[in-house]
């Protein structure tokens, strides 16, 4: 089975571009130009150079020996937490700022939930000297104050999204409205593999450097490019898409996606979209979506603001529907414990998003010969307050 986006932007039954006419010229411009721009040798050279010298790539592929011993399998960590700004998000924002410049755009907007994508966007805008506005839910601004200030220090304007539930989905709505009102000089840097075509595929390609490096590094260390499992957490799904991308068509590699179950999937306080969602349309694409019977979008919950999204990228909906991906969900409590476990076994405090991926190891039946790669998508510095509040360490 080939996992590939078609001409209209669909992965099987999911994807597409469900946008009002006001956004059509912008999205069309992007759709018609992104492949030519990003495959241009000059673009590639500048992108690769920045990933190397500015982001610090390639990130290490680290054999976690004590974690391996604990679970009885050979476990490698892809250290996206060591990227500049502390997470994989910057791979995409570097790509999109270079694209925006080549499209002649003078201003950048972005949405952010926990603030990581907002920080990564503010960072590249500072780097390029471009005006930056980040929309963030009013509720998230209060929850993630340090990241709000990081963005401001970097020179970005942070605008509160005060509509709806005042979280990530509303910040996304506000960014789209801003784009409608400023259609010619502004580029919208979406932070995940969501939104109308071509965003999901474009963001996945910028993030695909993760699995390209895994293949090379694993070959050096193990003599094979193919692990038995690649494990990643999924909110919108950009780090998972990046970690899976170069393995989509390698069927012997199991792609393990881990969603946030919040307080539990039966409590009404969860963000596990594949368990609780059904096909629907939000933010420009058809995907699995948490919604009421009437088609109203349901507000998700997770202790991790980065996984707190009511949908998933269309490619993940497709991986789920076709069975190419294996989906687990992990509660707040399980994720927090896994975060502490990694801290104690390996001296690495993970972002709570990434901790969800580690918690899934408890649900997998691993064998001693198994080669496992976990995408450690971000570091836990931003989550210290949440760890402290949780307190069980």
């Amino acid at each position, binding site marked *: 089975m080939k996992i590939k986006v078609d001409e209209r932007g669909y992965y099987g039954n999911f994807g597409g571009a469900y946008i009002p*006419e*006001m956004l059509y010229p912008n999205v069309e411009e992007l759709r018609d130009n992104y492949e030519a721009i990003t495959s241009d040798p000059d673009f590639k050279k500048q992108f690769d150079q920045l990933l190397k010298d500015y982001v610090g790539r390639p990130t290490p592929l680290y054999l976690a020996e004590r974690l391996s011993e604990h679970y009885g399998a050979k476990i490698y960590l892809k250290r996206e937490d060591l990227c500049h700004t502390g997470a994989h998000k910057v791979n995409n924002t570097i790509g999109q700022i270079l694209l925006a410049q080549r499209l002649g755009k003078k201003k950048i907007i972005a949405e952010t939930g926990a603030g990581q994508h907002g920080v990564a966007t503010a960072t590249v805008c500072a780097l390029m000297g471009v005006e930056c506005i980040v929309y963030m839910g009013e509720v998230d601004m209060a929850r993630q104050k340090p990241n709000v200030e990081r963005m401001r220090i970097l020179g970005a304007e942070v605008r509160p999204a005060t*509509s*709806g539930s005042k979280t990530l989905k509303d910040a996304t709505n506000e960014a789209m409205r801003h784009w*409608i009102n400023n259609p010619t000089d502004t580029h919208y840097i979406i932070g995940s593999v969501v939104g109308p075509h071509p965003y999901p595929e474009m963001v996945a390609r910028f993030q695909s450097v993760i699995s390209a490096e895994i293949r090379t590094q694993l070959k050096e260390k193990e003599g094979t490019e193919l692990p038995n499992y690649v494990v990643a957490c999924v909110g919108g799904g950009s780090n998972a898409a990046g970690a899976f991308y170069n393995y989509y068509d390698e069927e012997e590699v199991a792609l393990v996606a881990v969603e946030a179950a919040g307080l539990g999937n039966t409590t009404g306080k969860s963000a596990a979209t594949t368990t609780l969602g059904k096909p629907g349309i939000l933010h420009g694409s058809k995907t699995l979506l948490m919604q009421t019977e009437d088609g109203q979008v349901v507000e998700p919950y997770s202790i991790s603001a980065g996984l707190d999204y009511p949908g998933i990228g269309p490619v993940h909906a497709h991986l789920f529907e076709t069975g190419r991906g294996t989906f687990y969900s992990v509660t707040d409590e399980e994720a927090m414990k896994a975060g502490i476990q990694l801290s104690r076994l390996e001296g690495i405090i993970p972002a709570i998003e990434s901790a969800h991926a580690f918690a899934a190891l408890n649900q997998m039946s691993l064998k001693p010969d198994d080669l496992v790669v976990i995408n450690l998508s971000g570091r836990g510095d931003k989550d210290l307050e949440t760890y402290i509040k949780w307190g069980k360490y």
Partner: protein
Amino acid sequence: MTNQKEIVSKAEMNRIEKLFQTKPNRVLNVYFTAGYPKLDDTVSILKALEASGADLIEIGIPFSDPVADGPTIQASNDVALNNGMTLKLLMEQLKDVRQKVSVPIVLMGYINPIVQYGIERFCEDCAARGIDGLILPDLPMFEYLEVYKPIFEKNGLLNTFLITPQTSEARIREIDNNTSGFIYMVSSASTTGAKTGISEEQEAYFKRVNSMGLKNPRLIGFGISNKETFDKACKNANGAIIGSAFIKVLGQEGDMEANINEFVNGVIR
């Protein structure tokens, strides 16, 4: 049952086309959100609008994430949903609507609630209630042509696409070929209710499109709020659409019917 439905829908078809035949100028289309300000206001608002002289009425199906709408219509969506409005309930409220008003009615809605309701069932229910047309702003053209169009046509529903100042001439032609009823001309690059007044640049765009000789009538919406903006829009189109300004009227204190009457008359007088 199916036969009866078909007879009903065919007998009452083309209210929108008839409207533009008999009144090619100064057509006033008024938008309101179903379930706002109160859950059961739908039919009384329809009656009051018809009595005041509105030519066409657009009922908005509330959605949790209306990306093309500004703060006023967003807030009306939130209120409506909090009041308990659903598409199912709206269909209930509209059951006997054709015994109460004869004005052409279009339903406007973001696509997700309609997909969840079921597109066939939605169109059949619209036809059975005498709904004349649909505006689904986030429905892609190709999907309309391949999937929705035959279902709309079977049920006598006209379909309106939108154009904006950024829409290319080629796409305007494509939209004109695939629209029925009327084209919704978004007056500026904005969400609903965002701008006040009409600039010279906007008038130039109205004139440019007016001179294209399109097949379909055009109604201008977004930023139309009073007599002055309505008159300006009507100079280069067949009429105009008022949304946010009318939602504000519905939110006012006092007798709703009287407020509606005063507002509509203030615009078309």
